[in-house]
């Protein structure tokens, strides 16, 4: 065994004119640039869709409010949901995946760099198409601008008879375009993770982030495709006069629901599994321990991937399935608690006995654990069909899924931002601002989404632009709206922190967290080629081995 030391030079500041540099970003096929493009694009839409949420919340602050009309409210609701899911969380997760996967598996790029660029630009195009509906959605009949059919776009509301004009067309075409992009990204993830690993990195030695993204890739190709198929059918209905979902000609509204949720349920796990991946990387580093139960974590993730394809009809408990159908989906739905629970317990096991450093990324991960626990348990309540008959379609559901998405995914995302910001930008973020962000956001989050459960229990349906006084809903809506502003303030601090630190932050160095995965072995930001020499690994924590040559991990794994 011989060893050699390679020095990597830091990339100097780019002195070329701005036009040239911009051009570079647009034609780039480099996974790091594309990753950052994805992330910036998604951040932009976070603010846009967040403002749409704020508009809804202002309208709902008191009963019989006249801030916006019902039409505008419904558009805001649809655009908020669609944007957040498809043009915020999805791209941001793909962005982190694209950025990190090659670095973490010791590769120089994705398996198909050009496909990678294609995927990003399809997604970007989808978002533009969706928002172009504000201008182009008028259509021949002058009815409507942005789509207002809700993010599930249940038939027959999307039929020409109920959605004249082109707003719904923009909706389907946007999702069709971004769906193609997502499938491309899924294929790329799988091929990259399976075929580009550096020598020594067997499947059992990959960082968990790579494993989890492999599962995500698999879920993407099998779950986005049904949505794409269903959107093609909707296009056939709307443009060619087909009858797939035309209830007048014998078509079935329920079929659309099945198709949508066959996509929709695995989709929520596509969103959450990368969040799990972040947590699985951050918690060990800040607890100073390896992940607890690595093989079980992998197995649980794969189990979640499979089970998530069998639970979709828990979104349809109220559509009148047989009692056997309902019971089956109750079973699969509560069964998914088992692998999910295993993951939670393993994170706790990782923290147990560690030396937990409460830096900002770790704070967000702890917030994630706390909120995801509650959110999962409200999911169990929703998953038991009779209870669901009361809770479905109410604000309780809205509370449940924001709890998972905001309390879980967005928290994990913020954690990931702070954790990898030094790697991506070469500079440390500001810790004080980060803490401000955390506390503002967590207070806002709990004000908004804790109190949202209650009007649901008191019978307040979702997707209503106004409500009657005297039903016991007023006070809760008021608190919820106030919370939304706290969240906005938190996000504002976050954006300020990112921008400020980009210029003024401390230089980060290669490895500010004393971490263990390969991305921390190259310079920050990494050079174009990622690694001057292809690394060779012998364990799941190659940098631990390097830092502790007397006691390397590979002796134990």
């Amino acid at each position, binding site marked *: 065994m011989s060893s050699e030391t390679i020095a990597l030079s830091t990339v100097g500041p780019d002195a070329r004119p701005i036009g040239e540099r911009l051009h570079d970003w647009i034609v780039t096929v480099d996974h790091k640039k594309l990753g950052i493009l994805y992330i910036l694009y998604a951040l932009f839409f976070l603010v846009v869709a967040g403002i749409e949420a704020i508009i809804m919340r202002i309208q709902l602050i008191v009963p019989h409010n006249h801030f916006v*009309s019902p039409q505008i409210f419904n558009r805001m609701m649809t655009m908020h949901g669609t944007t957040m899911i498809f043009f915020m969380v999805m791209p941001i997760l793909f962005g982190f995946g694209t950025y990190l996967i090659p670095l973490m598996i010791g590769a120089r790029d994705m398996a198909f760099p050009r496909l990678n660029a294609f995927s990003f630009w399809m997604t970007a195009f989808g978002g533009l198409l969706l928002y172009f509906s504000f201008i182009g959605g008028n259509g021949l009949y002058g009815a409507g601008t942005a789509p207002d059919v809700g993010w599930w776009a249940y038939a027959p509301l999307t039929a020409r008879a109920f959605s004249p004009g082109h707003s719904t067309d923009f909706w389907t075409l946007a999702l069709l375009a971004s769906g193609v992009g997502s499938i491309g990204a899924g294929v790329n993830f799988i091929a990259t993770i399976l075929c580009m690993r550096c020598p020594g990195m067997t499947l059992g030695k990959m960082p968990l982030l790579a494993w989890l993204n492999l599962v995500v890739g698999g879920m993407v190709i099998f779950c986005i495709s049904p949505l794409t198929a269903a959107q093609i059918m909707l296009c056939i209905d709307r443009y060619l006069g087909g009858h797939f979902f035309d209830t007048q000609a014998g078509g079935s509204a329920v079929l659309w629901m099945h198709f949508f949720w066959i996509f929709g349920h695995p989709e929520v796990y596509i969103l959450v599994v990368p969040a799990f991946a972040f947590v699985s990387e951050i918690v060990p580093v800040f607890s100073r321990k390896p992940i*607890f139960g690595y093989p079980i974590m992998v197995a649980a993730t794969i189990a979640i991937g499979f089970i998530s394809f069998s639970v979709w009809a828990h979104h349809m408990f109220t559509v009148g399935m047989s*009692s056997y159908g309902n019971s089956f989906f109750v079973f699969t739905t509560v069964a998914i608690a088992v692998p999910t629970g295993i993951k939670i317990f393993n994170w706790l096991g990782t923290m147990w006995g560690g*030396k937990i450093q409460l830096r900002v990324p770790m704070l967000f991960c702890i917030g994630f654990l706390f909120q995801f*626990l509650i959110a999962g348990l409200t999911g169990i309540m929703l998953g038991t069909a009779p209870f669901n008959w009361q809770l479905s379609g109410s604000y309780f559901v809205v509370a449940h899924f924001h709890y998972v998405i905001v309390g879980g995914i967005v928290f994990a995302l913020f954690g990931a931002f702070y954790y990898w910001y030094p790697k991506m930008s070469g500079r440390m973020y500001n810790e004080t601002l980060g803490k401000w962000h955390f506390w503002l956001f967590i207070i806002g989050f709990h004000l908004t989404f804790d109190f949202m459960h209650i009007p649901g229990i008191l*019978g307040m349906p979702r997707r209503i632009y106004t409500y009657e006084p005297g*039903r016991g809903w007023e006070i809760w809506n008021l608190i919820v709206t106030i919370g939304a502003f706290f969240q906005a303030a938190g996000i504002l601090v976050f954006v300020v922190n990112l921008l400020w630190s980009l210029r003024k932050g401390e230089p980060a160095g290669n490895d500010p967290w004393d971490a263990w995965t390969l991305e921390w072995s190259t310079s920050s930001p990494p050079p174009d080629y990622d690694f001057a020499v292809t690394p060779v690994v012998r364990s799941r924590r190659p940098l631990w081995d390097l830092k502790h040559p007397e006691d390397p991990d590979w002796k134990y794994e």
Partner: protein
Amino acid sequence: MVIELPCHAPEGRKGGADGDSRLPRNIGQREMHRSAQTRALLGRVAGVAVLLAAGLLAASLCLASPSDPTQIPNIFKPQSTPAHSIFHLSMLILAITGAIFAVVFSLLAYSVAKFRKRANDDDREPAQVYGSNQIELAWTVIPILIVLVLFLATARVIRSIQDAPQPPGAIEVTAIGHQFWWEFRYPALGVVTANELHVPVSNPANSKPTFLTLLSADTDHSFWVPRLAGKTDLIPNHPNHTWIDPQEAGLYIGQCAQYCGTQHAKMLLRVYVDSPEQFKQWVEEQKKPAVSTDAVAEGRRIFETTACVNCHAVAGTVANGRFGPDLTHLMSRDTIASGAASNSEENLRAWIQSPDSFKPGSLMPAMQLTDHDLDALTAYLVTLR
């Protein structure tokens, strides 16, 4: 970086179970050196807790004085068998999930508090533990058992509600969802009405449940009266069923719970539970065709010669449209336009003049009548009792 060598005996690192013994060291020492940072953190957590508690308190105070508790469609105040069974099931589920929360949250809070890095800690890495099969097994098997309990309890309730047989004396109602109002037909009784469902009270001694067939004329809707039963969707081409047996007379509030278009918000639903005598009387009244006096003949003429008749029915006249609510006994209802306004002469007039004033986006067009015609028409409508 110094490494604690004793921890690295392979057995110790492999199994958490054996490794456990050496995890928390020097507990006493740790307690003594609670860093300022910890206190700051605890302070902040306490701050948040106080804030939330204050919010909760304020909220519950406000809640304590609502206008009328019967107006609150609380799912935890059931008044009918399906809602009762759901309530009992939900209490069980809340208990189980509450217990799980308590356990897992305590573990989380404990590990954050206990295993925090202190300011004066040395730089050594903690014991490197990779996992433990026994522990993994435990936290796999216990949840599986809980899942089985949840499933069995749920499946029983599903069957008891969904597969309940319809007893011979049950009232049958066909509810048809429209954008954005409810049509109720009682085929056996020959009654048609809108938005306000009347059913007889049902008590265990003299059970008189109401079985509803749910249809839709356009998009999806959902029938939801929280205190009586869970919701069931109304889907075109896909008849559904639900049932209720309210045990106490009174008014029960509900609302369409499936997004159905612009005015989904104002597709309110009222269920009046009547004593058997009241119900009988109500049915008798509703069965009669409309009677109108000569005093409102002009209004009646306007009604029958305007497009009104294309969309509305008034039994005993030429009006037999079905696009809008049946108006035969309009004045027997407390609200108009699916609860968007109370039913008064003034509101009726305003409604016909401009439905958008109550319900922007409703499918009734503004009829562009002159003031005079409007008055006459309203005068006619208020005779439809």
